[in-house]
């Protein structure tokens, strides 16, 4: 009887049954399913190389400073970044402007304060502790000025955008530590203003973008070559502008990324050594039991 059962559970049959079941599950789930690549209507963004990617990633200071310049001179006329404070510009792990430079930036803006002793609101120059002033007093005003669309706030935007990676890429991303869907999408979007393919018409007031879901985006191409003057000789192309401002947006969304990765490495070293020591201790403790 035992022999019968052990032959029943012999490998080929077992593999056969489990394999058939797994194949069945996959066919059911995948084969019958509609092609989902088209469901968002957007083309997959290209994976760019970012200085802040990977286990030892760091922001490129010069890039963040250039990105800030693009944000300040171009984006911030429509987009808010209400969680960004002027003091952040001087903090470690960011563009690391000097405190003096950050103060000068802050003083360039009038911030409403008050009420004063007379009960009136008043404007004063910005301070380091102030947050970035929004270009519009409220969402309705922003929509009214932008053809009904609301320019999203930059505070967390680089983490709030993504695209579907699909199987098996989403599993591989765990090992390659790919977390830059947002920046890749934003970079692609900023470079995605192309002529619509033949037969595609874009609604009035919208613009064709290869990467925007649905392809019709209200934001006109936001930046063109030579619009912002770099002082460090970096090429003044749309591609370069979009890289710089995307890196800046990532920092605004994740200001402690550098500290996170730095501490992460220290924690990993500690845990791996600790695990090694525990492994040998465990071996020694259990040695007496194993042979008796």
């Amino acid at each position, binding site marked *: 009887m*035992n022999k*019968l*059962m*052990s032959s*029943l*559970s012999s490998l080929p049959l*077992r593999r056969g*049954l*489990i394999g058939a*079941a*797994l194949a069945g*599950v*996959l066919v*059911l*789930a995948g*084969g*019958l*399913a*509609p092609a*989902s690549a088209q*469901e*968002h209507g957007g083309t997959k963004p290209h994976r760019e190389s970012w200085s802040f990617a990977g*286990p030892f990633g760091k922001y490129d200071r010069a890039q963040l400073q250039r990105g800030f310049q693009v944000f300040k001179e171009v984006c911030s006329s429509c987009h808010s970044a209400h*969680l960004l404070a002027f003091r*952040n510009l001087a903090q470690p792990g960011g563009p690391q402007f000097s405190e003096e430079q950050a103060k000068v930036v802050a003083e360039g803006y009038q911030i409403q304060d008050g009420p004063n002793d007379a009960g009136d609101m008043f404007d004063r120059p910005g301070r380091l502790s102030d947050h970035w002033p929004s270009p519009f007093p409220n969402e309705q005003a922003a929509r009214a000025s932008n053809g009904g669309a609301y320019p*999203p706030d930059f*505070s*967390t935007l680089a*983490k*709030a*955008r993504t695209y579907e990676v699909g*199987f098996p890429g989403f599993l591989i991303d*765990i090992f390659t*530590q*790919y*977390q830059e*869907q*947002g920046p890749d999408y934003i970079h692609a979007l900023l470079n995605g203003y192309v002529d619509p393919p033949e037969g595609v018409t874009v609604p009035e007031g919208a613009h064709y973008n290869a990467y925007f*879901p649905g392809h019709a985006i209200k934001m006109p191409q936001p930046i063109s070559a030579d619009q912002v003057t770099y002082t460090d000789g970096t090429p003044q192309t749309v591609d370069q502008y979009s890289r710089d401002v995307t890196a800046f947006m990532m920092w605004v969304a994740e200001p*402690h990324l550098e*500290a*996170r*990765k730095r*501490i*992460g*490495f220290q*924690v*990993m070293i500690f*845990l*791996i050594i*600790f*695990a090694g020591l*525990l*492994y040998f201790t*465990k071996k020694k*403790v*259990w040695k*007496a*039991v194993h042979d*008796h």
Partner: protein
Amino acid sequence: MSGHATFEPKNPALKWFESRLPLVGLIHSSFVAYPTPRNLNYWWTFGGILSLMLACQIVSGVVLVMHYTPHVTLAFDSVEHIMRDVSYGWLIRYIHSNGASMFFIAVYIHMFRGLYYGSYKAPREVLWILGCIIYLLMMATAFMGYVLPWGQMSFWGATVITNLFSAFPVVGPTIVEWLWGGFAVDNPTLNRFFSLHYLLPFMIAGVVVLHIWALHVVGQNNPTGVDPKTPKDTVAFTPYATIKDSLGMVVFLIFFAWFLFYIPNYLGHADNYIPANPLVTPAHIVPEWYYLPFYAMLRAIPSKLGGVLTMFSAIIVLFFVPWLDTSKVRSGVYRPLFKQFFWIWVAVCIGLGWLGSKPAEGGYIVAGRILTFWYFAHFLIILPLLGLFEKPKAVPASITEAVLGKKGSAPASVGAQAPQTKG
């Protein structure tokens, strides 16, 4: 489960205390002298890992509450305040958000282990049911926790899940309004979810105490499913299980740290970094990954009430597993057919999880129906029938025989291997 040393303090002060409250003795008998089967593999370390994760979630959660504001206009920005301005706030918040996923990974492994080795069978039915209750409480806690950052997925997830209760006839709409504290998901909802999210972990901790108590009454199961018969079949909890659990925990922490420090947003949704907006529905409302198999079942059934009942039944059926499995053999190791059906069922669960992340359309729904049917068939048809028709392999006479072969369990050597307790 008898024969372990009782704690006898030498220190006079401790003696005085022990005669009034034998607390140290309880700890000693539970976590030092407690006999554990000598053949436990690393799948058994997940109990300890789960205790660690519960403590980790409670401690990080308590600190987060010091900085969080449960109000619809402030919640999102207060979480971002934690991420930006609180010292190591980003670390605490990522520990908590990724910790929830780690908790579920550990609990699923723990449950799969219990199902494979028949840890739910007599006399461990109550132990198993307490575990199912903990799992239910975890699901409720995690769901309410995900609502607190008040992002788009928080809001719409809460809307979808609370609306499920409207499927119940007559009382449905009343239940939903009662859950919401109003006529839509709004500030009262956020406030009560926050309150319950703080309460439930302590209820989990309470049931965990019962779970461990029940465990210590009936003893641990082991890979052979054969109960320990002689002292040789067991080793003392300390140092043997302690050191093995510690290693399991630290290796698990490495896995945790990988997500926490390098891909902290991998397990979340990008949409939850957009503040909640009741006027804009996200393209796909997807729950957290650990609910996806149930979400797939919900959407596989054409009727709303049917879907809700199916989803809840998928968890309720777990409570009855001790009686649905009719096999006399406890461990799956000696059940050749069960083993295969077990892995098929695991594949079905993973398949359902994948389907849950897909839009409910076309072939996905068909696949969802078939896998949902199989999920229930496993418990309601396969498990009862397997016990009747399957010919199990020979089960070893004792744990020691399974480990060392027939020689090792010769009666002459019984007792030679006393647990080396120094406790």
